[in-house]
């Protein structure tokens, strides 16, 4: 019998008997797994790929920046050359006004939600300061804890049952 087979058998024997020893034996056995080495030149190729990716990102960012500057400059040049047409100013003002309205409405909705949440919180706090409220809360927590404990016991029994191995008839 070879060392490798003995290691494997030892690990499998220890599983289910001594967890710590099984873990150590498994670690030793994992040495049998062959390492997968990268192909020659992997590091150089990878570093070069990282550099070209960075150059690509820089080029893209520069192009986006140039496009933004060109479009703003173009628009400004058009306005300076021909003056801003009335319809353009009107549309711009409409868009700005509707954006402002949307912003204000969102803020108002947010404030309403906040107020109702604060109201709810106050109501809960009022209940909690009453002795009956505290008693009810403690009862609910006790019932919850008891239910969790029962569930824990059930699961533990279930695991114990499953670990008993094959049934002998």
């Amino acid at each position, binding site marked *: 019998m*070879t*060392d490798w087979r003995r290691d*494997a058998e030892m690990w499998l024997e220890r599983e289910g008997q001594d967890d710590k020893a099984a873990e150590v034996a498994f670690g030793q*056995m994992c040495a049998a797994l*062959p*390492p997968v080495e990268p192909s020659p030149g992997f590091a150089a190729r*990878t*570093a070069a790929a*990282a550099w070209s990716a960075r150059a690509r990102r820089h080029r893209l960012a520069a192009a986006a920046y140039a496009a933004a500057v060109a479009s703003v400059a173009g628009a400004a040049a058009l306005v300076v050359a021909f003056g801003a047409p009335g319809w353009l100013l009107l549309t711009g003002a409409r868009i700005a006004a509707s954006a402002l309205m949307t912003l204000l409405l969102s803020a108002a909705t947010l404030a309403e939600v906040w107020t109702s949440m604060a109201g709810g919180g106050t109501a809960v706090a009022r209940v909690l300061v009453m002795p009956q409220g505290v008693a009810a809360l403690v009862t609910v927590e006790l019932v919850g804890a008891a239910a969790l404990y029962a569930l824990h016991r059930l699961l533990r029994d279930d695991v114990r049952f499953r670990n008993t191995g094959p049934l002998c008839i």
Partner: protein
Amino acid sequence: MEPTDAELARQALAGSQAAYQALVARYASAAVNLAARLVHDRALAEDLAQEAFVRAFARLSTFDPERRFSSWFFQVLHNVAVDFLRRKRIDTVSLDVLQADGYPGPPAARSSSPDAQAEQRSLADALAAALRRIRPEYREAIALKYQQDLGIDEIAGILGLPEGTVKTYLHRGRKELAAILSAEGWKPETGVSETP
């Protein structure tokens, strides 16, 4: 004196491609190894490892030199592998295919006898096949722990899981592997004595 990972990272950020190449060379084997355990394809594992190194370089400015580079990098590699596995359900490839593709095969046997080498190869094949059959989460945790030799806290950081969950994954993964190998006849019928 060898520069530390943090020094190499700082030099790479400053524009030194050679420094980043040195950093890649330091973790290339670990990265390809881990990726190969996840996807079972050598070429794909190299692609994923390379993608992880490229992505890590793009985010190198977020690397905290107080942390270990390996933990930070394995986190990036984990994300790359998870993205890939989500995008594509991959078929597994047997170790024979890997070996035909220039896979180096098992490390030098403890004993040079042909029997021992054959036994090691047989065990490696059985273990690799069993690893493919368990859940990917268990497989990755096992590879990080037993192949990369990382601590539970580091694995938890890499996988983004609580330490308790990592311990559970390792325990369940090992139990499942034991069940598979036992079913394949690796478990002896009688007890094994520790002395030869």
